[in-house]
């Protein structure tokens, strides 16, 4: 208790230094938690994919469920030879995986990871509770193409280059409808703060209030994550593995892992913007973590749905993808924006 009061006093006296220390500690905790959860996500994907394809999936390392399979994979990737191809643009080649992971981790700082109830008050678990966190996340999401571009350009390989091309073209096409959907949500919630957006969904989820926006945002999100119906950047049958064709060892591991971190963070964004975040009926006995339970249940459903979509749908051609983005999703997202403004004004 004495320690707590000393900390509070220090916080009041030196808010800047206190903020810096808290921010660094929270960022360190966040980075490690996200990495562990993303590792579990790789395992979940392989397991669910196995179930959906009527096979076992990983079942040897770490008991019957193969939980430690990813640990074994990580050790394997760490010990593999790190090959830099001849003719590669070496500095860009080395920096690309680092840039890819760093830009992805930037998103995590602004996302609330659920909430806990302390003294009957909801306390959201977020590192940086900014007024403009939705806009920030949207801005940082558009940086992800840069890491992929650097990887594709520097590999000195035609397939990698094509993958990078496709990635940038797709990113430009889908960033616009996605941004319009985020703005529609912000208009309805009267705020760009993700915590406020969740609080605005106390009575009705935005997935119900603007179903069109939910569908468009979902499609644009799958595209941004580069997952199955839209994974033209690494379409195995066409361009080997796209921008990470030449990568090996731990650099490949980073690029591969980055996709799962993005998948986790993107699903969290979808839950926060459209599925009511941590809102749900209070569970009696364990009421203080009931928001967390709702949040993670919704998150798990979204993640399994993403894996399900990946397993069941065939891949589009690249021209179909850009057509869908510019000719269908963009006009529809504008319709949704008008709808959001009209409904928002009516109920304001």
């Amino acid at each position, binding site marked *: 208790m004495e320690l707590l009061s000393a900390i509070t006093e220090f916080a009041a006296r*030196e808010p*800047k*230094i206190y903020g*810096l220390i808290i921010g660094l500690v929270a960022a360190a905790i966040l980075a490690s938690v996200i990495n562990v959860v993303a590792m579990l996500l790789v395992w979940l994907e392989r397991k669910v994919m196995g179930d959906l394809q009527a096979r076992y999936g990983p079942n040897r390392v770490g008991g019957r469920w193969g939980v430690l399979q990813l640990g074994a994979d990580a050790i394997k990737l760490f010990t593999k030879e790190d090959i830099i191809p001849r003719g590669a*643009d070496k*500095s*860009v080649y080395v920096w690309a995986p680092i840039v890819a992971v760093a830009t992805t981790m930037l998103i995590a700082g602004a996302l609330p990871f659920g909430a806990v109830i302390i003294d009957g008050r909801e306390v959201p678990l977020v590192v940086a509770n*900014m*007024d*403009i966190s939705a*806009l*920030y996340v*949207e*801005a*940082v999401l*558009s*940086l992800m*193409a*840069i890491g992929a*571009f*650097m990887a594709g*350009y520097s590999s000195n390989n035609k397939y990698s*280059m094509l993958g*990078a*091309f496709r990635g*940038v*073209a797709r*990113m*430009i096409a889908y*960033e616009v409808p996605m941004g319009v959907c985020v703005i529609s949500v912000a208009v309805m919630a009267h705020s760009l703060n993700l915590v406020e957006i969740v609080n605005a969904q106390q009575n009705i989820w935005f997935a119900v209030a603007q179903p069109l926006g939910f569908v468009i945002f979902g499609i644009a999100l799958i595209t941004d994550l580069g997952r199955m119906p839209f994974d033209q950047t690494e379409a195995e049958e066409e361009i080997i593995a796209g921008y990470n064709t030449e990568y090996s060892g731990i650099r490949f591991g980073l690029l591969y892992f980055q996709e799962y971190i993005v998948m986790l963070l993107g699903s969290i964004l979808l839950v926060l913007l459209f599925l009511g975040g941590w809102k749900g009926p209070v569970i009696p006995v364990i009421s203080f973590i009931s928001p967390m339970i709702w949040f993670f249940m919704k998150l798990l459903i979204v993640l399994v749905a993403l894996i399900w979509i990946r397993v069941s749908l065939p891949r589009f051609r690249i021209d179909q993808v850009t057509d869908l983005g510019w000719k269908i999703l963009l006009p529809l997202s504008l319709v949704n924006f008008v709808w959001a403004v009209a409904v928002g004004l009516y109920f304001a």
Partner: protein
Amino acid sequence: MIDLAQFYDIRFLMDLGAFSILAVLILGFSILTVWSSNMVHAALYLLGAFASVAMLYVSLNASFVGVVQVLVYIGAVGVLILFAVMLTRRTLVEEESHG
């Protein structure tokens, strides 16, 4: 005249440190952009300069301008420059850089 008591205040030093690091980053990236003979490297350095400017805005408590800087300059202008540079022929770039 710098007040010494103020100069040794840790808050002032933190602000000064943040500004100095960002100033060095912005200047360094800008100079590298101009001096780099490889067009793609120049474009990437330019993105670095944009990102540093965004951080400078955030450190000046103008976080909205910082986010818009990321959204417009890195997300749109920077990626457009990268796209345009990718469409240039690589051999041409190399000839020019050596000639």
